[in-house]
């Protein structure tokens, strides 16, 4: 625990250093990055013990005479600390050249400080061990991330995004407060440990109240609205941390609470699973419909949260039905996907940031052919895309396979659990397919083909501090894919904190892991062999080059290329009732038509519903109620008399 705290102190020192020394810009950045990397490394060394030997260390102190702040570092916390201590330093390293605006020194310094604060608070959230400390660090986390989102406050969208994010965190926090206070009113103790002593019906209420709060942080479907606003608004290193790591804290909350409640009721699993299916499918469908690169990635976070929840839900159902293969593999898959998603999603966000910084274009249909001018970004982004589509031999597949494995073993159940499991498997299949579709679109439209606009042409690769993190992350994707054993075992280690779960025998895990590793390596071997084959075939062959075959059209132009919009349209159209497509088409109305424009926009039904069904009615009602402050002093005195009369009736 001491090393853990030490790492936090080092991190904090880095943040404060950034605040103090922001006048020497480069020195500040260098020092800050050095300190935060050092802190993270110390942190990583601190979590080895709990993760490998399962040792739980605690730290506690009294606060304001009546409270105690206590933190404990067990295997589950340790597992969630891995992404925190790996992604955050990479993001800071990335920011060295990314945040190079020298006439906004103080702002950059503030950004660094709050990024550090976010890292620390996340680490503490993952270790908080009683209600008070949890809520405290949770709020600090929300607050610091809010300031990070507001970094480019001079833009209108950013302000809107920040406001929406503020509202969602506020409401979410309220629900978490309520849940924990309710729990306290039954357990009379602030410690999480005592949660298990609650009556079952209260457990359910507490869980679902908290679920609203955690869900709004994690971006579960109806509560995801802030993500597609906040992630594009924030600078890319921040989006990488927020989308890669912070939203996982919501997941952590759900799993931790579930573990502490020691609940074995079927309803938890079924609800979580349903939410996962909905978020997963709709998330990827909306992602297909979006043309802003970072918005698209944001919706993919929703999708991946969905996948994680599917895994968790499978696990919960497994526990409820005492099907431990299902339970442990479901949970393990979910946990591992937390790690994987944090890796490839931050990789993708960093790549998007590089594209954004070099081309200044958000709309993917204005890009194209970037892989030639910025090869490193392109290749790493490609790897990220393949991994997020859950295709072998990359890491995304490993976690999804574990979830499949658990789910298939749930098929032997009967009744409702069977149906839920079927839907889990099918939705995983659909999500996988659609994700592949979406990222083939992104890769194809952004990086391949011909640049569609002047700005997109010959944009160079970014500086090494920006490419290095991407390369590291891309390597991580491959390594986890090809050597999954260690990581799978780690995920299972993380499960030890769930007391209701009796994990399967180590041999079974190892066999599964080995099989996966074998398949991945086999694929690689086959790939290289056929590459060799191709080489052989091309020995002393004449290879010429010409324009793309235009099917007889002789005047090809870059405008002719297939756009992302049309690429995705048929698929989105398939999901018509759940997505709301607005098409604006100027039409051809003269003999010699002028410029015609065709534009489709996909609106989020959840957002529209929130606006139309909830927000505007409330505002209308409040506006009506404002009459009471009308300025007539005579009536004001009337209020007083009325109050007297009413109250006297109470006697």
């Amino acid at each position, binding site marked *: 625990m001491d090393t853990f705290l030490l790492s936090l102190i080092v991190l904090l020192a880095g943040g404060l250093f950034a605040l103090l020394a922001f006048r020497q810009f480069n020195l500040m950045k260098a020092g800050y990055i050095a300190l935060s990397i050092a802190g993270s490394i110390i942190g990583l060394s601190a979590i080895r013990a709990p993760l490998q030997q399962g040792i739980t260390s605690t730290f506690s102190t009294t606060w304001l005479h009546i409270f105690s702040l206590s933190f404990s570092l067990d295997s589950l916390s340790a597992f969630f600390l891995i992404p925190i201590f790996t992604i955050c330093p990479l993001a800071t390293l990335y920011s060295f050249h990314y945040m190079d605006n020298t006439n906004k020194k103080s702002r950059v310094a503030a950004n660094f400080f709050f990024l550090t604060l976010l890292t620390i608070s996340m680490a503490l959230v993952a270790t908080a061990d009683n209600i008070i400390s949890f809520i405290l660090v949770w709020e600090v986390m929300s607050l610091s991330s809010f300031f990070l989102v507001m970094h480019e*406050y001079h833009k209108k969208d950013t302000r809107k995004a920040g406001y929406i994010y503020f509202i969602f965190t506020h409401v979410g926090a309220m629900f978490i407060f309520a849940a924990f206070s309710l729990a306290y009113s039954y357990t009379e103790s602030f410690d999480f440990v005592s949660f298990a002593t609650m009556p079952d019906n209260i457990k359910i209420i507490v869980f679902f109240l908290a679920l609203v709060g955690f869900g709004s942080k994690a971006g579960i479907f109806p509560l995801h609205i802030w993500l597609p606003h906040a992630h594009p608004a924030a600078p890319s290193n921040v989006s990488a941390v927020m989308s890669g790591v912070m939203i996982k804290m919501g997941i952590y909350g759900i799993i931790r609470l579930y573990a502490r409640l020691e609940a074995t009721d079927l309803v938890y699993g079924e609800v979580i699973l349903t939410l996962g299916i909905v978020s997963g499918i709709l998330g990827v469908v909306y992602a297909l419909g979006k043309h802003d690169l970072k918005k698209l990635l944001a919706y993919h976070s929703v999708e991946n949260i969905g996948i994680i929840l599917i895994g968790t839900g499978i696990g919960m159902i497994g526990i409820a039905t005492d099907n431990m293969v299902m339970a442990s593999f479901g949970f393990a898959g979910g946990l591992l996907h937390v790690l994987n998603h944090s890796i490839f999603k931050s990789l993708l966000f960093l790549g998007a940031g590089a594209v954004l910084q070099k081309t200044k274009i958000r709309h993917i249909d204005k890009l194209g052919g970037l892989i030639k001018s910025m090869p490193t970004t392109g290749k790493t982004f490609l790897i990220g895309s393949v991994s997020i589509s859950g295709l072998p031999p990359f890491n995304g597949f490993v976690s999804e396979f574990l979830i499949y494995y658990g789910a298939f073993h749930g098929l032997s159940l009967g009744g409702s659990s069977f149906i839920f499991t079927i839907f889990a498997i099918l939705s995983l299949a659909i999500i996988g397919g659609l994700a592949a579709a979406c990222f083939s679109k992104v890769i194809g439209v952004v990086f391949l083909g011909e640049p569609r606009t002047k700005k997109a042409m010959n944009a160079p690769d970014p500086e090494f501090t920006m490419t290095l993190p991407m390369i590291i992350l891309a390597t991580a994707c491959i390594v986890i894919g090809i050597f999954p054993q260690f990581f799978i075992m780690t995920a299972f280690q993380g499960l030890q904190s769930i007391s209701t779960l009796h994990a399967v025998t180590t041999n079974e895990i190892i066999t599964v892991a080995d099989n996966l590793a074998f398949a991945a390596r086999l694929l690689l071997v086959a790939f290289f062999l056929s590459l060799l084959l191709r080489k052989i075939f091309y020995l002393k062959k004449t290879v010429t080059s010409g324009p793309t075959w235009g099917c007889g059209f002789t005047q090809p132009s870059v405008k002719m290329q297939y756009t992302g919009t049309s690429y995705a349209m048929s698929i989105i159209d398939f999901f018509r009732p759940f997505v709301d497509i607005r098409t604006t088409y100027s039409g051809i109305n003269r003999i010699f038509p002028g410029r015609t424009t065709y534009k489709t926009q996909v609106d989020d039904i959840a957002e529209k519903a929130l606006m139309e069904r909830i927000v505007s009615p409330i505002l209308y009602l*409040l506006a009506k109620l404002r009459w009471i402050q009308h300025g007539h002093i005579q009536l004001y005195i009337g209020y007083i008399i009325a109050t*007297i009369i009413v109250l006297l009736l109470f006697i």
Partner: protein
Amino acid sequence: MIEFIFILPIATGLMTLALPATLGRIVLLVTALLHLQLTIMSWMGRLVPTFSDYFSASPEGLLILMVTSFIFVCISLYSFSYMQETDIENKPLFICCMLLFLGTMSMVTLSDHPIVLWIAIEATTLVSAPLIFIHRSKAALEATWKYVLICSVGIALALLGYFFITLAMDLGNIDAPMTFTSLNTVATQLDPLWLKVGFIFVIIGFGTKMGLAPMHTWLPDAHSQAPSPASALLSGALLNCAFLGIYKTHVLMCIAGLGEFSGNLLIGFGLISMMVGAIFIIGQADYKRMLAYSSIKNMGIIAFGVGIGGFALYGAFLHIIHHSLLKSSLFLSAGNILLGFGTKQVQRIGGIIRHLPRTYIAFFAGFIGISGMPPFGMFISEMIIMVGAFQEHRYISVALFLLALTLVGAGVGRIFMSMSYGETSKKLLVKEKTIRLLPSYALLLASIALCIWMPDIVHTTILNSIKIIGGITHV
């Protein structure tokens, strides 16, 4: 001779009428510091009341006295430069009224005799009226009129309430000196019916002053029209004094075994006030009015907490302290903004972060504070109140409580963000000055400090003020 605490400012205040403004400012500052010193001495128990059948040093009184005194020091420092930059015609009067205001408020906190308390509170109304009217605009005039009339009417009712309580004494044939301390000893023999009636009138009367809906109607007008230091005093100190009147009576009720009744009344008023605050904060166009409504909401929270009792009572007292600190700091920042931009309209203000960066820090920090986020103390107090409410299993009230908090958060957030970050076309009139920033920083830091480390003496004082009616803190 604890009475010095209010005699001193009153005397110096009357004195300053004769002095030129430049000298008066110094007197103001010196008096504030002396007052703080006296307060600290009284905390150490060095001062004992001479007229013990009118005055006493009750823990809750001392608590509020300390808050008032500290705030007043900051505000006097602020007005030190504020007075030059604004067109106050009659500066001596301003200073005099500030000091008298302090004096009367200190008197409220120290008074033990109900009707002395009443006199003091009525006096605060009268001496603060000129402060609101100091700018002599039509709007200020209207605000003052409403303030004086509504508050006088309300407080008259409070007097009636105390008459009923004395009647309750007569009917119980008690012949004890009529002070709260002695009443508490004989509370059980009081006639319950008339005690109830008395409490109703007291809560309506002082509730008018405290800003409990629906008697709050004067509050937004007065706070928005008064010069910022005065608004800060009104919101940060005066409301607490009115609350003190209600609280002492509530204690009496609880000891008399009518805590259920009075508690429910307080909860009801609290929730209504919170709702009213929420209603008017959302879509509010004037930021000083917005702050005023936020005070109404916070008074509602306090009343709610006191009504719930138990653990929430502790939270309510914490909330009093932190609300005073944060809200007065916010009003001072609002004063800087008003000086800088010359308008109270939210739409016409924007980009404070660019134009007044140092004010922005104080202003936005205050925002974070009043929306109940760490590291500011309201985070703790609101949480404690909520936990307490859950402990008492008052689920519907707590749901309304949360709803109000959410609405307020949304409304306040919109205003603060558009003001801090949005665009503006207006030019800056007055630059920000350190002397006008220090006070708001000091207040914020005090709130943070109390959130990180609370001195034992404060803790024990709060305990003493609530343990008489079973406020608990053991968790």
